[in-house]
């Protein structure tokens, strides 16, 4: 059953003395799963889709995951690392939650997850998967069901190479994820880039960058600007008249369903690399898509698919352990084979417990009834691809 914190918390907060909120009463024997995610601020739709995708998998299984009744506790970290950590601590100590998930952003993960792992908890990431967790600081109880961060950009680099672009211009905001994006892109693109620009995180106007791109006359551009930054960048790219002459290759964070709709027709023709798309032709995906649209009356983004996959992966593990999460080694053994049907098709865990999957090329097109759609192109960009950090991981 899906138990919103609304029901739990209100009783607890009102009944208990201000400093000592009581733990909520356990509802039957349901296994509690704690979800810390971002539901306010500019990145809020990411957290919303992850939560909804996860909850959908539970609903499809009538409140269970892998035969075990589960109860999902959701709280908003407001994109504040301190808040995320506080919630993790409350989940683990007060609610006795052993299994956590949900964090969208790497900086919240960096603050909250080490404590979870040190206290013997299990964390299954539906999104943020920074390189240290895949390599040097990998942990037997840390799982990523999304991707390793670099793979997103390596796929884009491979796609740009496959498309035969000789001079690619790259742009990303000047912060860690932006620098990682450019490094990842270059690793697979493997040709010298025509130029690189680091933009600002608080930037809204990109006119100066557009002029530089025009002056450099590249074959194509690759840019990583997640969320609102990317929407502004794309709109201004099109308005500057660059989209007709210089094609664009993107990784999925810069172009999900919501960003595409916010940019509008201007997005047509853009190439995106992704691990999942709504038009994948497999039974699991058709089922996911139909159920998601029926329940929430909107199109899922890939974040929703990741939330859904996370729930399925946990479900597969719970089926193996008969609902036990206290023996983490047993949980690990049950989780590792990834015995579930992912909407993205082939899915396996690599030795560092990060996904090994296929990467595809999508194009923004107008479909028959004039609506915008991300359309999967034939062939695979990367096949059975894990990540570059796995070798550094020693448990």
């Amino acid at each position: 059953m899906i138990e919103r914190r609304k029901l739990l918390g209100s009783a607890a907060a009102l009944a208990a003395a201000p400093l000592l909120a009581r733990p909520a009463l356990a509802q039957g024997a349901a296994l509690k799963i704690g979800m810390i995610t971002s539901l306010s601020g500019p990145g809020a739709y990411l957290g919303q889709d992850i939560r909804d995708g996860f909850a959908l998998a539970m609903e499809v299984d009538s409140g269970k995951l892998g035969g075990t009744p589960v109860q999902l506790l959701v709280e908003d970290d407001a994109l504040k690392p301190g808040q995320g950590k506080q919630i993790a601590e409350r989940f683990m100590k007060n609610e006795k939650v052993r299994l956590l998930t949900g964090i969208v952003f790497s900086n919240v993960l960096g603050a909250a997850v080490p404590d979870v792992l040190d206290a013997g908890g299990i964390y299954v990431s539906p999104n943020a998967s920074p390189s240290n967790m895949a390599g040097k600081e990998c942990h037997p109880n840390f799982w990523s069901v999304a991707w390793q961060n670099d793979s997103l950009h390596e796929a884009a680099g491979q796609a740009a190479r496959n498309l035969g672009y000789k001079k690619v211009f790259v742009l990303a905001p000047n912060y860690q994820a932006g620098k990682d994006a450019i490094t990842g892109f270059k690793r697979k693109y493997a040709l010298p880039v025509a130029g690189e620009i680091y933009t600002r995180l608080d930037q809204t106007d990109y006119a100066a960058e557009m002029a530089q791109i025009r002056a450099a006359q590249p074959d194509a551009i690759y840019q990583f600007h997640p969320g609102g930054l990317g929407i502004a960048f794309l709109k201004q790219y099109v308005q500057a008249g660059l989209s007709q002459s210089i094609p664009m290759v993107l990784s999925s964070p810069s172009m999900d369903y919501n960003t595409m709709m916010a940019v509008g027709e201007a997005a047509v023709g853009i190439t995106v690399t992704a691990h999942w798309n709504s038009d994948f032709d497999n039974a699991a995906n058709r089922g996911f898509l139909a159920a998601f649209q029926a329940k929430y009356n909107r199109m899922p983004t890939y974040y929703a698919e990741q939330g859904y996959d996370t729930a399925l992966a946990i479900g597969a593990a719970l089926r193996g352990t008969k609902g036990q999460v206290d023996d983490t080694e047993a949980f690990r053994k049950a989780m590792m084979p990834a015995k579930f049907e992912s909407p993205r098709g082939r899915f396996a865990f690599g030795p560092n417990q990060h996904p090994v999957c296929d990467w595809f090329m999508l194009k923004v097109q107008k479909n028959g009834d004039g609506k915008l759609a991300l359309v999967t192109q034939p062939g695979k960009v990367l096949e059975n691809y894990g990540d570059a950090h796995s070798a550094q991981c020693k448990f």
Partner: protein
Amino acid sequence: MALLLEQLLNGVQLGVMLFLLAAGLTLVFGIMGVINLAHGSLYMVGAFASAFVAAQTGSFLLALLAGLAAAALCGMAVEYVVLRRLYARDHLDQVLATFGLILFFNQGMVLLFGRQPLFVDIPPLLQGAVEIIPGVPYPAYRIAIIGVGLLVGLGLWFLLQKTRVGMLVRAGATHRDMVRALGVDVRLLYTLVFGLGALLAGLAGLMAGPIFSVQVGMGEQILIQTFVVIVIGGLGSVRGAVAGALLVGLVDTLLRAFLPATLRSVMQGADADALASGLASMGIYVLMALVLLVRPRGLFPAHA
């Protein structure tokens, strides 16, 4: 040469965009002495209202009216309910209250419109590009922004300097009791001025819609830069806001445009890029600090 000209034009255009937002903020500060952190929220309200109406009706005129009306009405409601009680208080209380308003407005927008960013199209008339500088197509919409900014600047100047209302407003700022003694309803006057400030914020928001991202929190992203503009220009001075906005727009654009290449000629590529973008991020704050150290009240202080 064409590149330099284009970048200068870009700088002016960014400056005008900042001016649209700064004009309302500085007006409200200059006349009522209120620091309104929620100015960015009114900008967001304007952008959301016009995006919503445009999507529902497909009419850009209706969207324009809706954006202006929503921002102005919201502004007047905020003034009536909250801010009029804070005119006599110090800046701290105003900062705290308007910070509370930001939280309220942001989450209110989530409740009304959901969490995903909204789509806004450019009016058909303004799509396409114009070649002002030979060989460089410049988006028509951005030229329109410059035009609107000029009109707003002239309009404000005319309103404040040449009309009876403007005279009352200016007098109300410095000699409140005198104006009241003349039988003018100062409270109503203030509500209207605040409404005008909010209307300008809404105008900036709906103009920004087609080029920026219309999403919750869009106001705070640009709010701090707007404060930088009015502090550099001199608080409460519309003339200062113009100067500050153009200065900030130009400095910001030119640093972003030319600093990386300049640094790369003296040091290694990757280090140069990182340093350049770091310096460019700090550029406008360094500018503000320098201006304030030389002229602590800004370039064109009001009531000097």
